[in-house]
């Protein structure tokens, strides 16, 4: 039985903000199916009562002194916008995201 269908590949691509050609969908369905099949081996392990590891080295939440000087100043706006594909004054410009209907 296959682990993933081409429809699931298309849905996942939408979630990942990727546009895939039909050829890519076909190839990825085959490749992801093989990879997910390999990952089946994890099902053979008993993980009941095991806590998940999110970080390999346990960390306390570090706190710095609550003063502005503790870190270097942030990037000046002009420098931060230097590589922007499109800017408007002190902002990144993007396509309109609000549809206005009369």
């Amino acid at each position: 039985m296959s682990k993933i269908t081409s429809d699931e590949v298309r849905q996942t691509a939408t979630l990942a903000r990727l546009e895939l050609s039909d050829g890519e969908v076909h190839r990825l369905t085959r490749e992801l199916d093989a990879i997910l099949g390999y990952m089946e081996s994890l099902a053979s392990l008993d993980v009941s009562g095991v806590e998940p590891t999110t970080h390999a080295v346990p960390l306390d939440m570090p706190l710095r002194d609550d003063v502005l000087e503790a870190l270097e100043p942030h990037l000046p706006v002009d420098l931060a916008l230097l590589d922007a594909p499109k800017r408007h004054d002190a902002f990144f410009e993007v396509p309109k995201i609000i549809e206005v209907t009369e």
Partner: protein
Amino acid sequence: MTITDGGLAEVAQAIRARQVSAAEVTDAYLARIAAIDGTLKCFYRVDEAGARAQARAVDERLARGEDPGLLAGVPVGLKDLFVTEGLETTAGSKILEGWIPPYDGTPSKKLKQAGAVLVGKLSMDEFAMGSSNENSAYGPVRNPWDTTRVPGGSSGGSAAAVAAGLVAGALGTDTGGSIRQPAALTGTTGLKPTYGRVSRYGVVAFASSLDQVGPFGRSALDCAYLLQAIAGHDAHDATSLGSPVPDYLAACARPIDGLRVGIVRSWVAKLDRELAALVEEAFNTLERLGARLVDVTLPTSEHGIAAYYIIATAEASSNLARYDGVRYGLRVPGENLNAMYARTRSAGFGDEVKRRIMLGTYALRSGYYDAYYLRAQKVRTLIRNEFARAFGAVDVIATPTAPSVAFKLGEKTDDPLAMYLNDVFTIPCNLAGIPGMSVPCGFSQSLPVGLQLLGPALGEETLFAVAGAYQRATDWHTRRPPA
């Protein structure tokens, strides 16, 4: 014997003793790059003017009698995911083509502070995803030992540049073996430090619970010089460890009498006969040097690849969400915001990056999360516990680094799963967060073979001691590829 034949430590000492000027050293390396990198293609870009200016500054400090820093005048290359102020940084991806970072990341900054001469940016698999450097959007690197073969990956440019003497040392990153595997395949020495030992501020992220920065050199001592300069806590990286940074240079000279070296027989059994014989010989050398060999087993680590490729891709799918065409890098216009995102990402990412984003997004989908991501993280706990138990009985574990010598360009590009299986011996170390080093231990089919040394968390000094003793007793690390 020219200066580029030596290792980083020798270059640093010669400049400090003023036997040679930093400017002469930089010129010699730049000349070597000009002569042979057209074939190897280790560099994306060489910052000749910047390198010469940094070298002159070191010479001026030396002339004034000032301390120019541990790495004064030493030419170092950076994998192209280290953010460098004013110098294009692409992470091997078309989506970042032309990006000129407005700041230096902490590793770049610390190298400069230590007096290193940053020569340029080195080729890599796109976003550090790959084991052969063939996923670079700007063409693959060739292995200096045989230019029809891969240098390993993802830090393939770093490894090949050090092997070929284009730089005295280099930095890479290692998420599942991306320093150790290319080190093994190019006959260089490479170290993945303990998770958190080196700051990742200004290092392009792949999988944040696994990524770690580390050095390449010709010897353990070379790596010690580099790690000494870059290790330590950084207020800009909350995951960087606060533990004091020990004297890694001194650690390289420590005796290893009575040290317990763990051997994982089931890993050696995965090798062909010639590779197994080389690794066994390395174990015997360690024994002759006073170490005691002890068998250990790591059965859960057999599942490392499966756990890793879920965790790493899940984290990557989240990390790479930032490449959306809004703030920097490529933008492909679309009729609305979502269309712009999708077009930009589809045009900017290569096949392997898309594959991993897809895999990671799938593993995180509701309904699949428990079966994949959560289960993988629990398996990760089992692997960590397994190493903790092993390090109760031994001080260090010695294993092969890679399951084969360098393979041919194109040999595995059609089969992603076959490529993933290359990481079988390197991945458990990342999942456990422990340090790992690869040192050259011989040749098979005239190609270098690596021995991997694993230590407990913050056990870098022990790895340096073992590797230092081994390299005083052997000369594999001094072999050079054909000019």
